């Protein structure tokens, strides 16, 4: 099994990244290779970074309220580029009434405040596309 590679990004105009940084550290401690691309990323930048890094997972952190617009635009662009095997998950402030909508738009899971760090790492391990990580490390 190869190491799971995760791209963590803050989409849109959102300057609060304490949570994103905490999750980066937790996933690093869980043995994953975590690329943090920083604040104020456009959907194009996120998709381009995910491709260049060949990330297995994209973790988007959003607290701005723009999730109904910007998250579907990320998943749509991924699809347009032919990237269908990457797990896209979200953390931040997302009202529960929007969860169903986001899941319909390709977001696999949503983690709100207070999620135990272990739970996020376990979710990734269980749900990452197995074909992507089954290359035997030699």
């Amino acid at each position, binding site marked *: 099994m190869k190491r799971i590679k995760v791209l963590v990004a803050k989409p849109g105009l959102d300057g609060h990244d304490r949570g994103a940084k905490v999750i980066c550290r937790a996933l690093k401690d869980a043995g994953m290779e975590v690329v943090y691309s*920083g604040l104020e990323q456009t959907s194009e930048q996120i998709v381009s970074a995910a*491709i*260049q890094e060949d990330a297995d997972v994209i973790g988007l952190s959003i607290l701005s309220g723009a999730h109904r617009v910007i998250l579907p635009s990320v998943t749509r662009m991924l699809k347009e580029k032919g990237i269908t095997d990457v797990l896209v998950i979200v953390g931040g402030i997302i009202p529960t009434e929007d969860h169903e909508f986001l899941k319909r738009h390709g977001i696999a899971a949503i983690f709100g405040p207070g999620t135990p760090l272990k739970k996020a790492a376990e979710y990734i391990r269980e749900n990452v596309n197995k074909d992507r990580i089954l290359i035997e490390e030699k």
Partner: protein
Amino acid sequence: MDVQTLVDGLFKGDIISTTRLISLIENDFVKAQEIIRKIYPHTGNAHVIGITGPPGSGKSSLVNKLALTWRNRGKTIGIIAVDPSSPYSGGALLGDRIRMREISGVEGIFIRSMATRGSLGGLARATRDAINILDASGKDVVIVETVGAGQSEVEIMKVAQTIVMVLCPGLGDEIQAMKAGTMEIADIFAVNKSDKPEAMETVNDLERMLNYEGLDESKVGWMPLIVSTSSTANIGIEELVDKIEEHQGFLTSMTSEASHEKRAAMELVDTLITKIENEAIKKAKESPVYNELVKKIVEKKIDPYQAADIILRKYMTN
């Protein structure tokens, strides 16, 4: 997708092929060899630049500005940014992209972060092969950013043609500048954060260090240059790019059959070490005595040298 399809895609400039090939050479040593065999004749065209220096000196921010400047001059750029893996979890936090937001998503610039996975020389094992992939994809310039380098991470000299050492004010006096190791391998010193007043002292220390007719004849013909830079204040970036290109011109005028052979020999020895190491460890672990020897070492009935000799004599002779 099979390797041949990906390699064909690479030559056509397909980004997904490029990125998948880099993942394969990082994770699959057998496939890596097949890939390199197919692309090797197409390498050697890119100017490979190593950016090294202590943690926090501003390497990533400077790479961001350098790439932008080269892109404006019409070049295509590949970047490999290396950060360390955790010795505990094996995970890594690859944070160089944070400083490269200006060039993220720009057409003609490809950025790849890479974890060291236990390599200690400032690069990852797969870095050299990843350079070859970006080179074969047709990038004009390949920039390799090392991990934050202390005093002995000099692997970069084996893979880069021009080495830029990024320093910043406040890191130490002139004795630090005189020491062996990373300070010796620089072709160009970038004194970064030069908008700070103390930067002049760093420049002075470096000038004193360089203004010395030494006995080392390995660097004949090129006197390391000093450029004051600041990524945030946009100072000295164009000048640094000019100096790097000047060094490239110097290399072109200087390169001889001998220097090519020296580099090829270095590459051969490194590859031999990797192959022998991989094979030896695999065979050792498969050998029936391995676990028993480990136990004996714990019990102090045997020392690690003796145990290694037993494995070498019994299982490695062919």
